[in-house]
C-alpha cells in the first residue's frame, strides 16, 4: 500500500516536471505591464457599459459599495496574500477612514471650493489617518505570529468600533470643536453634530459618485500591482516565503512588514471615506468583525495574493446576494452553501486535480480550434 502510494507520488512528480512551464503571467512574475493595461482597460470599459445601462435603483445603489469592497479586498490582499499574515480587523481601518473622512468633510463643508476638491481632500485625510493607525497597530501586532496576530487584529478592530461608537464630535455655535466620550454639552444644533455616539455619523454630504469610485479602484489597483512588482514588494514576499532566509540576505523584516501593513491600512482608510460619503448616516457598529471577515472571504475566494482575483470576487460576491433576492429568504442560505461548495471545489487537493484536468482539456480544445483556423 505504502509502496503504491510512493510510486503514485513519483508519477505525480514526473508529471509536475513535465508541465513545469515558466510561471509566465503568474501574478508573482508578471513584469511586463500588459496585464496591468488589460485589467485597467477592462475596468474602464466595464465602467462605460455600466454607466449606460438602465439599472434598477437597487443596483445603482450598489455601484459605489462594490467599488469600496474591491478596494478593501485588494488592500487586504496585500496583508494576507503578499505579506502572508492573517488580519481579521481590516474593517477597523475602514471605520477610522470613514469617521475621520466625514468629520473633515463636515468641517470644510462651507469652505469655498468645488465639491470634488473637498472630497479629494477628505479622502487624503482618511488615507493618512488610516496609515497612522496602521503604524500604531502594526507596531505591536507585527511582532506576533500566525493566529495570535489574527486575533489581535480582530481585537483592535473591535476596540476601534467600540470607541467610535461612543465618540461625540461636533461644532458649537461659536465655532469651537467639542469632542468627548460622554455626550454633547455645548453643541445643541443638530447641524453641528458630526459624530453622535451610537447614532454615528449624521448629515454626511453625499460626495461619492460611481466615477470617483472607479477612478479610486484603478488607482488602488495600480498601487498594489506596482508595489508587488517592485523591490519592496519582492522583499515583503520574501519575508512571507521564508523569514529566516530573507533576514540572511539582509532584508529588514520589521521595516518591510510595516510598509506592507501600513500601505494596506492606508488604502482601507481611503475606502472607508468613499463608503461613508455614499450614505446620509453611518454607524460604527457597521464595521464589526463580520465586515472584516466578509472582505477576507473576497480575498480567499479571489485567490490569495491574486489582486485581479480580488476584484472579480468582490464584484461577484457583493452582487450575488442581490441577484439571489428573487428567492427571498433563502438567499443568504444559498449564499452560505455556495461559499462552502466553492471553497471545497477550489481548495480540496482532490477536487483541485479534477479541476486542473478539466481546465487542461478545455484549453486543449481551444488551442486545437485555433490551430485549425
Amino acid at each position: 500500500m505504502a509502496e503504491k502510494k510512493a510510486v503514485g507520488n513519483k508519477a505525480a512528480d514526473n508529471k509536475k516536471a513535465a508541465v513545469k512551464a515558466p510561471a509566465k503571467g503568474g501574478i508573482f512574475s508578471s513584469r511586463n505591464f500588459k496585464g496591468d493595461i488589460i485589467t485597467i482597460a477592462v475596468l474602464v470599459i466595464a465602467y462605460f457599459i455600466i454607466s449606460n445601462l438602465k439599472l434598477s435603483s437597487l443596483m445603482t445603489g450598489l455601484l459605489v459599495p462594490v467599488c469600496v469592497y474591491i478596494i478593501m479586498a485588494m488592500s487586504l490582499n496585500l496583508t494576507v496574500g503578499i505579506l502572508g499574515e492573517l488580519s481579521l480587523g481590516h474593517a477597523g481601518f475602514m471605520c477610522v477612514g470613514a469617521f475621520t473622512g466625514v468629520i473633515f468633510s463636515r468641517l470644510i463643508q462651507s469652505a469655498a471650493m468645488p465639491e470634488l476638491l473637498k472630497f479629494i481632500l477628505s479622502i487624503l485625510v482618511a488615507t493618512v489617518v488610516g496609515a497612522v493607525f496602521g503604524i500604531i497597530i502594526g507596531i505591536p501586532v507585527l511582532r506576533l505570529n500566525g493566529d495570535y496576530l489574527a486575533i489581535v487584529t480582530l481585537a483592535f478592530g473591535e476596540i476601534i468600533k467600540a470607541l467610535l461608537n461612543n465618540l461625540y464630535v461636533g461644532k458649537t455655535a461659536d465655532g469651537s470643536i467639542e469632542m468627548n466620550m460622554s455626550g454633547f454639552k455645548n453643541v445643541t444644533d443638530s447641524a453641528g453634530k458630526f459624530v453622535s455616539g451610537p447614532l454615528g455619523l449624521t448629515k454626511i454630504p453625499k460626495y461619492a459618485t460611481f466615477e470617483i469610485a472607479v477612478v479610486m479602484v484603478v488607482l488602488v489597483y495600480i498601487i498594489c500591482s506596482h508595489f508587488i512588482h517592485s523591490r519592496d514588494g519582492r522583499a515583503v514576499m520574501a519575508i512571507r516565503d521564508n523569514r529566516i532566509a530573507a533576514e540572511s540576505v539582509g532584508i529588514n523584516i520589521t521595516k518591510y512588514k510595516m510598509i506592507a501593513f501600513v500601505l494596506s491600512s492606508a488604502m482601507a482608510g481611503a475606502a472607508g471615506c468613499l463608503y461613508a460619503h455614499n450614505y446620509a448616516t453611518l454607524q460604527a457598529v457597521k464595521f464589526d468583525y463580520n465586515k472584516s471577515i466578509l472582505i477576507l472571504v473576497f480575498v480567499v475566494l479571489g485567490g490569495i495574493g491574486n489582486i485581479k482575483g480580488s476584484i472579480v470576487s468582490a464584484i461577484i460576491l457583493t452582487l450575488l446576494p442581490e441577484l439571489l433576492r428573487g428567492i427571498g429568504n433563502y438567499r443568504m442560505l444559498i449564499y452560505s452553501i455556495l461559499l462552502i461548495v466553492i471553497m471545497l471545489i477550489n481548495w480540496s487537493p482532490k477536487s483541485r486535480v479534477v479541476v486542473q484536468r478539466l481546465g487542461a482539456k478545455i484549453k486543449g480544445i481551444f488551442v486545437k480550434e485555433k490551430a485549425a483556423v
Partner: protein
Amino acid sequence: MDKILTLLSNLVNGLQLGSVYAIIALGYTMVYGIAKMLNFAHGDIIMVGAYVVFLLFVGQGFNPLLALVISIAACTVMGILIEKIAYKPLRKAASPLAVLITAIGVSYFLQNSALLIFGSNSKTFSSIINLPSIKLAGGKITITAISLVTIITCIVIMIALTTFINKTKPGQAMLAVAEDKGAATLMGINVNKTISLTFAIGSGLAAVAGALYCSTYPILSPYTGAMPGIKAFVAAVFGGIGSIPGAFIGGLLLGIIEILAKYYISAQLSDAIVFGVLIVVLLVKPTGILGKKIQEKV
C-alpha cells in the same frame, strides 16, 4: 463593607460568565490543538444547542435535563457531520485560510438556517434550573442557582476532560494527533476517528454552554452564539490556544474582567476593555498565559 459585598457579587457573576466562556473555549482549543484550525462556526453551535433546548423544554415541556441531553446529542452529531463534510476535504489544502473561510461559510449556514426555521424575532429563554437562590451576608449577596450550577458544571467538565485526556486511550490518541499527525498514524492511531471525537466533544460542550448561557441571558436569536463564540476564542488565545488548562483559566479571567469592567468602568466599553487586556497579555506573553513557545529550527 457594601463595596466589598458588591465586588464579591460581581466576582460571582464574573465567574459564572467566565465558566460559560471556559466551556466554549475548551471546545475551541481542543479543535485548534488537533485540527489546527479556527472553527469560526463553533459559536453558532452554541446557538443551535440553545434552540434545541428551547424547543423541547420551553416549547414541549420536556424535563430540562432530558432536553439538554437531546441537545448535546444533536450538537455532537452536527459537529461530526460538519467536520466530515466541510472541513475534512480541506485538511491538506495548500493554505490554512481555506478551511477558515469554509468555517465562516458553515457559520453563515447555521445562522441563516436558524433564521429560516425560527424567524428573526428573538425568543425568550427560561432558565433550565428552577431552584431558589442562595442568600448570604444577611441577604446582601444573592447567588442564583444557575450561577452555582454553571460554575460547578464548568469545574466538573474541566476535571472530566483532563482525566479523559490523560487517563484514557482515546484521550492519549488526541494528544498524539495534536503533537504530530504523521507520527500518530504510524503508531496505529486512527487520525480521522480522533478528529471526529474531538469535534464531537467540542460540539457537545457547546450545547451545554448554550443552555447555560441562555439561562442567564435569556434572549435567543440566530446570532446569539456569535459574540460568546468570539469571546471564547479570545479566552482560548488568552490562556494559550491548544492548552486545556489555558482555556479554563482564560475563560474565567475573561468573564471576571468583562463583568468588572462593565460595572466599574463602562458598560459600553466593556468589550473594548476585554480586547485591550488580550492585546496587553499577548504583547507580554506572545503565546498566551499557558501557551508553549515554539522556536523554528534553522
